[in-house]
């Protein structure tokens, strides 16, 4: 399958290139970047030295491909998507511009009205664990946000099972590494400012709130923190239960949802130093690890989920969705298990 990447000079673009260059059924033909046009892709992604001779081309020089991965910033994709769709093939959009089904949420969360709301009907929310059948045959796949992907995978089975009291909000406390801010994220991510910090950067109103509510059906109150890490998201969701449950019931719910899923693992072990999900050991892998605890004192369940934000939170999930859409084995090109220690 012939592939191109639009906007390949950022961290998500680089992770896509790393995966696509080693995928046995994909031939990466073009990578675009207006700011780096003409330069070798290894200038932006030195880990790819000796794996490719590709050079960045301007967006306007992209030829039609069988799959186009779009890794441009939010609010840019929504204007140019008709042009990319007209080239044919499958488009996988890694921006937020086609995630929300309700166009009225775009002014609230992204500050602009959506110029092509008809595409929000056409797009599929590209989380295979929830929308596998819709992804098959789709030509517009919208990749989830990183914090959203982790949180949705932990919360959705609990809400769908009826165990959670959805008359009360679910409080989500998310921590993310600096790469989630992108390669051009400004002074907040410079080393002197970021190193050693534990910063509450979005106490309320985080953009991913909208897609978590859309995909779980729960009312979400989320706070997001920047922590001392390059990769990783750890999401901790606090939900109140309708009635007391025991741990075996939670195991049953998660096994029913994810027992046959290739990239979701339930991590809730009795002993050891890695009893609950931890993003660090997932670096470079496409896994989402989910754990839980019960607080009998307050009738609360605490659901935690960990991912690599650039993998299951971006490029890895995008390739997983493409594998589904194209009829390839779902795990193809995504078998790397992560590193330990790291």
């Amino acid at each position, binding site marked *: 399958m012939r592939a191109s990447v639009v906007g390949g000079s950022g961290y998500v673009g680089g992770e896509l290139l790393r995966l696509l260059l080693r995928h046995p059924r994909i031939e990466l033909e073009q990578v675009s970047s207006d700011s780096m046009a003409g330069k070798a892709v290894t200038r932006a992604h030195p880990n790819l030295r000796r794996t490719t001779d590709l050079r960045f081309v301007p967006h306007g020089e992209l030829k039609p491909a069988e799959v186009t991965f779009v890794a441009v910033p939010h609010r840019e994709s929504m204007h140019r998507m008709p042009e990319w769709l007209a080239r044919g093939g499958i488009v996988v959009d890694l921006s937020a511009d086609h995630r929300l089904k309700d166009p009225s949420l775009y002014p609230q969360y992204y500050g602009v009205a959506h110029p092509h709301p008809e595409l929000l009907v056409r797009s599929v929310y590209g989380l295979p664990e929830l929308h596998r059948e819709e992804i098959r045959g789709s030509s517009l796949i919208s990749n989830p946000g990183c914090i959203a992907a982790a949180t949705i995978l932990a919360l959705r089975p609990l809400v769908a099972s009826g165990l959670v009291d959805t008359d009360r909000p679910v409080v989500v406390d998310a921590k993310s590494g600096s790469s989630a801010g992108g390669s051009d994220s400004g002074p907040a991510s410079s080393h002197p400012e970021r190193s050693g910090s534990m910063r509450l950067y979005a106490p309320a109103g985080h953009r991913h709130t909208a897609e978590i509510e859309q995909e779980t059906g729960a009312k979400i109150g989320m706070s997001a923190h920047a922590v001392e890490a390059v990769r990783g998201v750890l999401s901790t969701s606090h939900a109140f239960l309708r009635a007391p449950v025991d741990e*075996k019931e939670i*195991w*049953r719910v998660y096994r029913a949802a994810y027992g046959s899923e290739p990239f979701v693992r*339930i991590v809730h*072990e*009795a*002993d050891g130093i890695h009893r609950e999900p931890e993003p660090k050991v997932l670096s470079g892998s496409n896994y989402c690890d989910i754990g839980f605890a019960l607080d009998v004192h307050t009738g609360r369940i605490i659901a935690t989920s960990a991912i690599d934000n650039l993998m299951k939170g971006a490029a890895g999930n995008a390739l997983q969705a493409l594998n589904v859409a194209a009829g390839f084995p779902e795990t193809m090109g995504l078998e790397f298990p992560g590193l330990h220690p790291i």
Partner: protein
Amino acid sequence: MTECPACDAHVECAAMVAGEIFPCTDCGTELEVVTTLPTAVQLAPKEAEDWGE
């Protein structure tokens, strides 16, 4: 085949002997084989906090 008493995971211990201790593959809880015909397991005893005193 029997169930882990902590998380209800299916655990296989037919090839083990009574008294053998092994971890549940899902939750990691240490289990002790009580009998093999039929198979039955229980939570393995843990060291108490005053172990050795």
